[in-house]
């Protein structure tokens, strides 16, 4: 099981802070999430969406996911 977390505007738009998914790769996870509906498909297709795997930003197209991994999706950061 992979833990998926959403932050800030992305969390509000999806109306979801966290969910679990049974997937073995990031590409499969994204495809599965986008199948949840038009809203999910649109929000998760945003070009500036940031993805982090186990709390490290991931820039690539795809990677394997292991049991217990944590995947996060969030908008560009605005702290400081």
């Amino acid at each position: 099981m992979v833990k998926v977390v959403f932050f800030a505007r992305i969390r509000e738009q999806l109306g979801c802070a966290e969910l679990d998914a049974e997937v073995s790769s990031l590409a499969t996870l994204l495809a599965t999430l986008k199948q949840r509906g038009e809203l999910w498909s649109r929000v998760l297709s945003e070009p500036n969406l940031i993805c982090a795997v186990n709390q490290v930003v991931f820039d690539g197209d795809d990677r394997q996911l292991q049991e217990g991994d944590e995947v996060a999706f969030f908008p560009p950061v605005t702290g400081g």
Partner: protein
Amino acid sequence: MKSLSSRQSPVGDSASLHVSVQESDFDTAQLQRALLSGDSAEGAVATFTGYVRKRNLDLAVETLTLEHYPGMTESSILDTLSKACERWPVLAGSVVHRVGRLSCGDQIVWVGISAAHRGDAFAACEFVMDYLKTRAPFWKKEEGPNGSRWLDAREEDTLKASAWE
């Protein structure tokens, strides 16, 4: 001081590093004193304090709510402090960043860097702020008389951070 989370650099690092992400306000004088080694090694301390502005992008701001990614935020700031130590001879570095609901005029963030000389302290302090603004997972939501909005990342912040590369 109530702290949501606090990180210290691993023992063995030459510089003493500290990160705290917290809801509570902070005392800059106390933070600056805590940065000092006690053996008078430092000749300079450069600090930066960020505040909630009453106007942003031509809109009035009443409250600012800051969200973060617990764990990743702290490790990302600690990584930035470590990068600063690789570039400048930093003696100690500390970052305190608030989260939750803040009001106009409230302190948001504090960065303190000590070094033997002022040039290194100034440069490292600015570097840490520039990196923090574009790397650390924090998000700001402003509320004012016209409603609420999540802030967008600013191009000039990205350019400023990439200028260090």
